[in-house]
């Protein structure tokens, strides 16, 4: 047979010895019919315009930690007072660059985790393993759909999103090289961009693990799991897992289940791997607590073997374990800890080396082997001491007092402690009165970072002293946490639509993040309880979720035991580990799709614009500390969701704070009336750090207000804002009048009083017969108000260019 080979259509007479491989056969109906939006798989530039709109209103604020830069050999450079360094960069831009780097690190962490998981799961289960999150979740991957523009049906489909994400990380990180950006606004745009990527990779990771490991799929009634320091039975061998990647903890559960020996061991986790372990095991594994519990757990001798993977783990983990005779198995190439690679060793050899003490630890990136080695080692180690060394920070009281008596109150510890805890006063009090209560109180806030011990000239084991002083309370800080449920159901979102517009649900508070709380841990519960009581929807994840599982009230119950796990008024839903935060952003995106049928596909700016103007949700990180948290928060910001952080969050260096007095910045286009309209400054910040829990509560209520609230919605939001301000700040807030559009917005029981104040203090004109406001509000209320700040969105729905 002869044929010419050229492009185009041609005829074949005959084919010999031809094999035809058809890659994919799909029904026409399966192809996603939704039209592609303007920005699928966006690069740095595609969404820059949206970023600039946000940055115009929410001006970046920089609080430098360092005022110099030493990243290149032309330095170190003094950038103080906003001077320029050798490369020409000024202080503001240098800070913006640092912020971008931090967000890159955060995105890379989740991305590395996602890639690792995805590749492994595809290898194990195949490319075609379907993504099915249950009958009530139709929009399975809202973030991927919106950002990447694909609808993943199988694990293999997630690869496309992953590859795009990895590409973006390269581009953004590249821009932080010396001699790139000149504009701090453009760095912020890149930071937002890579943080949006962060949300995508988190979604990839969580969806993949939910379907592959059969974790709860958007179920409100998930089991409760034991959480806290005192949860393990000290008469059993204890396996402790710390880190974020369930790939290494799950095999242990699998192995023990296979052997029928799950009940002979205690398996508990620290940080997100604990979350995911409990999601996999239906609550059978336990949670010691968040990252601040690492040293507490290790120094108390509880673990018989320690398995670490990646992120947020102590960089002196090996040292700490060695000191206690606890063998360590490191499993992630991100943290090999200088240990020998035992991947190819037979299980017996590994076990012997660890149990005999020949090696303090091994690097073992092979999940199945970890699954076998861990229990064997734990059991052998346990036999050696029979449970004797568990829950003891000191061998006896004498040792404890020896340490205390060494203290000279030099205060070196105080000046290095992140919270400036008055350890000196605690020690002095104990020395004088033999009363440990002041030291005990420190435990409530101590994050067990160990800086104090490093600074102490007498090498006092300060952490042990603090923990031992509060031992009874610490031991009893245990409760139940609801296992992570994964996504929010589409039907749950539909369910809350009507109550929100009818003013029965004031808003959504998402308490996420790390444990660097400025206050005792129970302050977190106090803050959230205020909102649960007031019928807000409260969502939580990560270390916050775990902390809530450890704070009990007088009846010995945690907030989970008193609150349903539904995404509904007065509910407390735990989505799971940190990668599950993607479901919170996903829920906001789904609102746009479910109620307004805004197309998601490759349509990020329109969706973020919708969320900014309509969805009354606020992120809340009372104790953020990591780069991941920075990326997660910035990712929420790009989506139009404000975030309130605790005071340590000021050390992220950058905030997004709008100025209510700059009236020209607070405007929207109204599609309905075809005009440009001035609006109230709501929300007036995208990232703000509060100092106290009182301030946090008021800011959270305040930042739930949105321009497109209905009257009833605005009324209920103002009711809570005003009530909380009176309760915690002592009076009505200074800016409440800005949020009043009509008399229907006024809280019912205060209506008369408020109308009087509007008239007397703010000079508004009131019709007292009809109790109506005639003059004064920034704008009137119109139910059909259809706001947007994106010109393209305006054009799309109005059919013409926006007014000037």
């Amino acid at each position: 047979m002869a044929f010419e080979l050229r492009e185009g259509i041609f005829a074949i007479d005959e084919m010999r010895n031809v094999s035809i491989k058809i890659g994919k056969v799909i029904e026409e109906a399966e192809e996603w019919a939704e039209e592609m939006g303007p920005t699928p798989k966006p690069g740095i530039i595609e969404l820059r315009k949206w970023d600039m709109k946000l940055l115009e209103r929410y001006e970046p604020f920089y609080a430098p930690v360092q005022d110099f830069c030493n990243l290149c050999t032309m330095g170190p450079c003094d950038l103080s007072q906003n001077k320029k360094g050798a490369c020409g960069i000024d202080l503001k831009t240098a800070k913006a660059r640092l912020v971008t780097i931090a967000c890159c690190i955060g995105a890379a962490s989740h991305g590395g985790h996602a890639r690792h998981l995805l590749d492994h799961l595809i290898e194990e289960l195949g490319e075609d393993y379907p993504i099915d999150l249950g009958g009530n979740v139709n929009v399975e991957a809202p973030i991927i759909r919106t950002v990447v523009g694909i609808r993943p049906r199988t694990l293999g489909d997630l690869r496309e999103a992953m590859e795009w994400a990895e590409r973006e990380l390269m581009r953004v990180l590249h821009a932080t090289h010396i001699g790139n950006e000149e504009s701090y606004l453009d760095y912020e745009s890149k930071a937002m961009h890579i943080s949006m990527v962060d949300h995508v990779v988190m979604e990839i990771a969580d969806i993949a693990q939910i379907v592959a490991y059969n974790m709860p799929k958007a179920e409100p009634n998930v089991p409760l799991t034991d959480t806290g320091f005192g949860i393990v039975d000290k008469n059993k061998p204890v396996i402790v897992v710390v880190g974020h990647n369930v790939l290494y903890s799950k095999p242990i559960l699998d192995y023990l289940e296979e052997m029928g020996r799950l009940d002979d061991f205690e398996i508990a986790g620290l940080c997100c791997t604990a979350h995911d372990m409990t999601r996999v095991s239906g609550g059978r594994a336990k949670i010691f607590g968040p990252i601040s519990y690492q040293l507490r757990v290790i120094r108390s001798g509880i673990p018989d073997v320690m398995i670490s993977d990646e992120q947020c783990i102590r960089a002196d983990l090996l040292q700490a374990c060695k000191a206690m005779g606890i063998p360590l198995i490191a499993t992630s190439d991100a943290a090999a800890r200088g240990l020998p690679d035992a991947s190819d060793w037979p299980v017996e050899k590994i076990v012997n080396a660890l149990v005999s003490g020949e090696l303090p630890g091994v690097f073992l990136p092979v999940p199945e082997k970890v699954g076998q080695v861990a229990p064997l080692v734990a059991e052998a180690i346990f036999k050696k001491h029979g449970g004797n060394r568990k829950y003891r920070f000191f061998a006896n009281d004498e040792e404890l007092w020896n340490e205390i008596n060494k203290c000279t109150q030099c205060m070196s510890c105080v000046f290095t402690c992140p919270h400036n805890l008055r350890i000196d006063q605690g020690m002095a009090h104990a020395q004088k009165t033999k009363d440990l209560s002041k030291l005990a109180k420190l435990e409530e806030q101590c994050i067990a970072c160990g800086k104090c011990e490093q600074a102490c000239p007498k090498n006092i084991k300060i952490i042990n002293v603090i923990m031992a002083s509060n031992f009874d309370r610490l031991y009893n800080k245990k409760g139940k946490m609801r296992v992570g449920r994964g996504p929010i159901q589409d039907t749950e979102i539909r369910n809350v639509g009507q109550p929100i517009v009818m003013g029965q649900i004031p808003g959504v508070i998402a308490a996420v993040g790390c444990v660097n709380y400025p206050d005792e841990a129970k302050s977190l519960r106090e803050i959230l309880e205020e909102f649960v009581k007031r019928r807000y929807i409260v969502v939580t994840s990560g270390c916050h979720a775990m902390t809530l599982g450890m704070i009990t009230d007088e009846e010995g119950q945690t907030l989970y035991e008193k609150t349903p796990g539904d995404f509904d008024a007065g509910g407390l839903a735990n989505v799971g580990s940190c990668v599950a935060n993607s479901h919170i952003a996903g829920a906001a995106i789904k609102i746009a799709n479910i109620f307004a049928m805004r197309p998601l596909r490759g349509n990020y700016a329109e969706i973020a614009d919708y969320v900014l103007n309509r969805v009354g949700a606020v992120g809340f990180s009372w104790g953020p500390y990591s780069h991941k948290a920075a990326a997660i928060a910035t990712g929420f910001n790009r989506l139009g969701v404000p975030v309130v952080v605790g005071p340590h969050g000021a050390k992220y260096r950058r905030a997004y704070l709008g100025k209510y007095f700059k009236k020209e910045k607070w405007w929207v286009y109204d599609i309905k009336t075809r005009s440009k309209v001035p609006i109230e400054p709501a929300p007036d910040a995208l990232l703000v750090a509060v100092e106290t829990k009182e301030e946090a509560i008021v800011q959270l209520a305040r930042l739930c207000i949105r321009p497109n609230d209905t009257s009833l919605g605005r009324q209920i939001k103002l009711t809570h804002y005003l009530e909380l301000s009176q309760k915690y700040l002592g009076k009505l807030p200074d800016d409440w009048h800005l949020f009043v559009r009509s008399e229907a917005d006024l809280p019912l029981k205060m209506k008369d009083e408020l109308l009087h104040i509007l008239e007397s203090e703010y000079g508004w004109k009131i019709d007292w017969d009809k109790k109506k406001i005639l003059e004064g509000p920034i704008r009137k209320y119109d139910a059909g108000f259809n706001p947007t700040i994106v010109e393209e969105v305006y054009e799309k729905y109005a059919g013409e260019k926006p007014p000037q």
Partner: protein
Amino acid sequence: MAERKRVEVPEGVKKKEVSGVPESFPFEISPMFEGERVRKGDMYVELGGPSQPGFELVIALPKDQVEDMKVTLIGPDLDEMEEGKAYPYAMIYYVAGDQVDNDLEPVIERRNHDFQNYIEGYMHLNQRYDIWIRISKGAIKKGLKSLTEIALATMFLFKNELPFIEKIEAVYITDKELVEKLLNEMAMPIYEERDARVEQLHDEDVEEFYSCTLCQSFAPTNVCVISPDRPSLCGAITWFDGRAAARVDPEGPNRAVPKGECIDPIGGEYTGVNEFAKEESGGEYDRIKLHSFFEYPHTSCGCFEVIGFYMPEVDGIGWVHRGYPDPAPNGLTFSTMAGQTGGGKQVVGFLGIGIAYFRSKKFIQADGGWYRVVWMPKELKERVLKYIPEDMRDKIATEEDAKTIEELKEFLKKVNHPVVTGVVRPVDGKKITEGWKEEEEEKVEEVVEEKAEEAAPAEAAQPAAQPVQQPMMPMQPVQMPAIPQIQMPQIQLPAAGQQPGIKLIIKDAKIIIDKVIIRGKEEKKGGK
């Protein structure tokens, strides 16, 4: 019509009268107490509830018969009650105002529940004659002394929220005899009268409908039109509620929609409604037929309680409620179908409604109403069973009767459902569908037989839509997906060397090759 009269206080009964809102109340009032539950152990007293009679009633009276902000308590007050016990309880409110009429009474009455729950330490459950109140010990400790304080606080909130109430007066009764007497002689007849009115009030009887654009906050083009025969799809607003809201704020999200002329009495289309819809939806659509599934259907925002879907295979309509997790016979779940509609767009083939619409006499009457309904989940069907005409009750399938289209077809044939032979629309007796046609035999049979002659192991015919699981190799028996394009002449694929006798004949296929890689002389790929 039951008469509206002030309550006559019998001789010699204990009476307490208080007027005017006090400086402050001995309790907090805030929506945050809405979900507050008072448990038996915490309660001071119970009022009404399962063991004692009780009712709440709002009646409209002429202005001169109402003393504003006055409460009369007949019977023992809180300080005379014994802790832990239950007492009878009646709350009667007289309301007056230029815009107040009897239709507004139930709307105002329902707010009693909401407002009283805002009071700290006071729990109000249910409504009408089912009311169940508990007052907590904490409330008494905080200084609550008298039920008159509760009444005044409630009336204060009423006036703030509903400014068309110009005067309001309360009569609270805790005297058993009087409560029972008034329940039977006054309250029950009024409740029955109201139910009858709702039952008997139809679209034709009123001059205007009411709109709701609250959801435009999330779905900018959605406009709900609420008529006596069509309540809101979110379940929150009836025609009466709309009327009250429009009275409160005529320029607000609930407005009067003058009907205008009736263009289509069966489908429910009115000129006034059309104009309004065009205006409020920003021109997104300009016609609505209130009681039609297929033509200009009513839009929804996304909060509908139930979704209707059309199954062309059976020419019938199915309904699924939110919360039913399994797929309907069409293979789609509530969430998937819901994703096809909503957002304030008119989408034919799916319709979001509220459960209350099942009660309506005009339930999708343009399309045959219940006679076109073929499937609903058992839970939903039981809930609305009494509204289904008796002759259709056994003909509507549930998941117990059918889970797939095939099973549904079987079932419908078996019970001889109207869709099989053609639906006759009850409202006018018109036959609106043709019934099922004879199915065309698929030509698949022939093709398979042809292949069976030529290929050794023949496979049974599969519907053309099956995706191929494995890459096709000449050595394995294969299924060819139906490729419709007719471009190519016949091609014969000779079998590979080792396997005997399998020939693949590709007829009428268009093959598009993404890449052709020509390797050295090792393999002959289509060359000489």
